[in-house]
């Protein structure tokens, strides 16, 4: 577990001081993908750089694997850093080295013998899907491929934690998704903890188990990614959720929906992330003698399953509709009747 207590970083200049990170508390479980989201200037980069002490904290404690990182001497800090991988927005590869040599770099630093290095590097190249590109130079690779090298390099010394600072922000949407898939794959295969920083809710939605929202150097909201998606409390969080879900439907829209039907019922279904309910609609129409009309909806896939809302119109006898609604309410999908049309 990674436990962060009262962590602060204050940048002082002649005229003012900036509290980039301000008494931040956070607990991150082993093996989870933890996302930190926030707008520019929220202090995200400063925060993640404090974790491996690329920035020196002004105050606070960071415990990783039972060791307080903030108290380590420079020698043990270097040793500890070998167990904390990091990937960067701009990849930060050595242009003078090939893919193979870049990935070998952290192993050289750790003093791994040559034969072992070669073996490990080839394994990693396979893991990140770069077989055949061993002897390419970074300048000969695409952005996505460069980040794969970055990931392989970060994994070379079998770290327990992987820090990602905007690791996909320089990539196009398709490549972003590929890299995110790779991170999930690595998380599953190697069981390491991933902490990632982003300003895109899409990234959180796609791969994070838990999320913290940062603003003004503090965590203003945190929880299971799905919970935060479903019940965002803070204004900033709501804005982030809208990034992927679109704006909330307002009452006027729902009323206009209802008015357009003369019989049946308009219901709102809340999918809260259980993949077992993916076939709900087809099951309903098979089991009950009703017609189902999908009116409007917004469903997205998260790490925990489908999440979102769906407006449907159920038409048939009142009895059948009642039975169908009863059926839905026994699943994990929340159902909310919007109207009884006359």
């Amino acid at each position, binding site marked *: 577990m990674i436990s962060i207590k009262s962590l602060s970083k204050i940048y002082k200049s002649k005229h003012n001081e900036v509290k980039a990170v301000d008494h931040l508390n956070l607990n991150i479980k082993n093996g989870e993908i933890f996302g930190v989201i926030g707008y520019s200037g929220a202090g995200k980069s400063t925060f993640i750089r404090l974790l491996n002490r690329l920035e020196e904290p002004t105050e606070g404690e960071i415990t990783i694997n039972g060791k307080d990182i903030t108290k380590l001497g420079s020698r043990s800090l270097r040793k500890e850093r070998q167990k904390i991988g990091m990937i960067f927005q701009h990849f930060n590869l050595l242009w*003078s080295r090939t893919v193979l040599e870049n990935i070998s770099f952290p192993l050289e630093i750790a003093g791994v013998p040559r034969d072992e290095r070669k073996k490990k590097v080839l394994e990693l190249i396979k893991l990140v899907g770069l077989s055949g590109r061993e002897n390419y130079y970074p300048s000969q690779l695409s952005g996505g491929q460069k980040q794969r090298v970055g990931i392989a390099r970060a994994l070379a010394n079998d770290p327990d934690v992987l820090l990602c600072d905007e690791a996909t922000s320089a990539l196009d949407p398709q490549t972003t998704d590929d890299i995110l898939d790779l991170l999930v794959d690595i998380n599953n295969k190697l069981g390491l903890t991933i902490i990632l920083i982003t300003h895109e809710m899409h990234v959180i939605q796609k791969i994070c188990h838990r999320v913290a929202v940062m603003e003004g150097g503090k965590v203003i909201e945190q929880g299971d990614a799905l919970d935060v998606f479903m019940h965002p409390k803070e204004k900033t969080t709501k804005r982030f959720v809208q990034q992927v879900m679109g704006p909330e439907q307002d009452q006027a829209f729902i009323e206009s929906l209802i008015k357009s039907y003369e019989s049946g019922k308009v219901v709102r279904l809340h999918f809260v992330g259980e993949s077992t309910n993916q076939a709900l609609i087809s099951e309903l129409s098979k089991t009950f003698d009703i017609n189902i009309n999908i009116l409007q909806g917004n469903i997205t896939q998260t790490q925990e399953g489908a999440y979102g809302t769906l407006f449907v119109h159920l038409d048939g006898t009142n009895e059948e509709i009642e039975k169908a609604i009863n059926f839905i309410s026994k699943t994990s999908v929340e159902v909310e009747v919007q109207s009884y049309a006359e």
Partner: protein
Amino acid sequence: MLSNLFPNVRMEELWTATEETLYMTGISVLGTLIFGIILGLLLFLTDRGNIWENKATNFVIATVVNVFRAIPFIILIFLLFPFTDFIMGTIRGPKAALPALIIGASPFYARMVEIALKEVDKGVLEAAKAMGAKTSHVIMKVLLPESMPALISGITVTAISLISFTAMAGAIGAGGLGDLAYRKGFQRWDFDVVFACTILIVFIVFIFQFIGDFTSRKMDKR
């Protein structure tokens, strides 16, 4: 044919002088490379925001470098006579030119090294730090390799200055093509000798330039 064009040129003399020039240039380039890189690294590393940040040390090194850079080479030779006599045991011949050549060129090269190192991507240095690299690793595995093309083109320019420095040193008896052109050519008024020496020096400069450009380009994988 050649003896008609260059009636006063003696081949053995010309050859010895060329060898001496190459000897002086070769050794002094090597010395400059070593001292220049050490000084350049120190300048870079003790600068603000760097691993060995130290205002006082940086100031001292920068001052020494600037002072030696400001001294005209011909004066530096005179200035260093006692020092040269002390460490080389003589103040004549190609060997005696070496201290002045190295001390004269190293500060120039040190500044070029410093500039080259400043061009190394900060992100890459940070990545190395995040991987737990020691300072020696950072120097040997990141700073020097990542600035190699600039280090090479810098030493090429320096080597070419060194060739003309050797000619100047020749004028006070260090041997080499400059010496030959001065004593046999200028003083005896045999201008064919001066001309032959010129051709050879230009040729040597071109070869250095070619090798430097080629290696620098070959190394650059950006």
